[in-house]
């Protein structure tokens, strides 16, 4: 087994995501133009969209890892699913919070049942339930199996929820959401793309650290078991 602390790729990933995050932060404040109608508040958009992207992508990874676990039955797939859910939850929570912060000055309220905000809240609840499910099951193999099944079924309902919420809100038009449109300039697109890259890198480095942590926990449990038996 390798010693901890030799994870060159992990360190490189973390460093790279830190650099790109600072670039994205600088671009959001200095490079991107001030939005005409919303003003500086609009700048939260770059991080809001990026965290939403990472959240949904993380749950997609959990879905794939669930399929992998059911097909192969190897612990590494379960570690991947679990790690990705935890990171996804963090980012979806950030999406909901940044969305609310933005909605207050622009729509005049912290919370509105706007489709994208609603689907993020539904996602948050689904994967909180995923975490509670894991916590309530004894036995690592059964835990992994049930979590994989729930991760698969949950992800399959996401597009259906999205259509349902969207139709629901467009059939009953909401005055509050009417004024949400904004003119996108190419500088805004550049900033958004860099933010997306920064958050994706951050996701990759967090995922790598979380997977390593879980492997270390497993290794510790094995060592403890060996000491107790001798």
């Amino acid at each position: 087994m390798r010693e901890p602390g030799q994870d060159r790729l992990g360190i490189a990933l973390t460093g790279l995501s830190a650099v790109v995050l600072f670039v994205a932060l600088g671009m959001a404040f200095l490079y991107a133009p001030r939005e005409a109608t919303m003003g500086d508040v609009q700048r939260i958009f770059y991080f809001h969209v990026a965290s939403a992207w990472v959240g949904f992508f993380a749950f997609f990874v959990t879905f794939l890892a669930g399929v992998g676990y059911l097909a192969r039955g190897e612990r590494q797939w379960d570690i991947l699913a679990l790690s990705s859910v935890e990171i996804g939850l963090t980012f979806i929570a950030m999406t909901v919070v940044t969305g609310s912060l933005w909605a207050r000055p622009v729509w005049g309220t912290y919370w509105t049942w706007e489709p994208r905000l609603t689907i993020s809240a539904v996602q948050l609840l689904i994967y909180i339930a995923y975490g509670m499910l894991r916590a309530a099951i004894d036995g690592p193999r059964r835990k992994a199996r049930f979590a994989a099944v729930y991760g698969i079924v949950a992800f399959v309902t996401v597009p259906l929820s999205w259509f349902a919420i969207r139709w629901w809100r467009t059939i009953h038009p909401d005055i509050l959401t009417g004024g949400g449109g904004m003119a996108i300039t190419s500088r805004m697109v550049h900033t958004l793309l860099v933010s997306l890259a920064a958050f994706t890198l951050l996701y990759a480095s967090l995922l790598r650290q979380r997977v390593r942590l879980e492997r270390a926990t497993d290794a510790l449990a094995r060592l403890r078991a060996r000491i107790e038996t001798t």
Partner: protein
Amino acid sequence: MGFLRKVWAIVAKDVAAELHTREMVSAMLVFSVLSLLVFSFALDLRGAMARAVAPGVLWATVAFAGTLGLSRSFAREQQTGCIDGLLLAPVDRSVIFFGKSLGNLLFMAVVDVVLLPLFSAIFDVPLLRPGVLVVTALGTVGYAAVGTLLAAIAVNTRAREVMLPILLLPLAVPALIAAVQATGYLVEGGTLAEVGGWVRLLVAYDLIIVAVSMLTFGYVVEE
């Protein structure tokens, strides 16, 4: 034995057990009536108000009564050791899934059949329309299918009955939204063709959920 006959054998077993004990359907029925009572106190369900919130009240009641029955469905199997017998039987896991789902669907349908006329009579809302029946049937099918899969998971957790609604309700969001919206339009005099989008969404939900649940159910019950 053919696939359908095997499925039917499991359904018949559940129906026979239910006829003996009457614990699931009677609990769901009493709960539904209590739920209507609570909603009528909470929302003052009269006249235009009743008509406006009827679809929501109806589906909230169906959903909560459903979780009540679904959580019993596997708890009973486990208490009696019947689940081991089912797993030992020389049938495919999907047979067990369809058998249990159909049984649960049947019990939920009994609740629907009692609830709709009762609701119409008490709150004077025209729910006994062919369109509403179609939407109710479609909504109940998907709910019973995903509920059966998740009940099989929840029964093996430490929290058991507490776990099922937490797992089930967020996954039922698309079905609940579609069913409430479609029922709302139909109560206001709309036709089934006018709510075609919602009906198609319900059908898609049912098909996808049944397929995914059938494929994954085997992993839930395997030991």
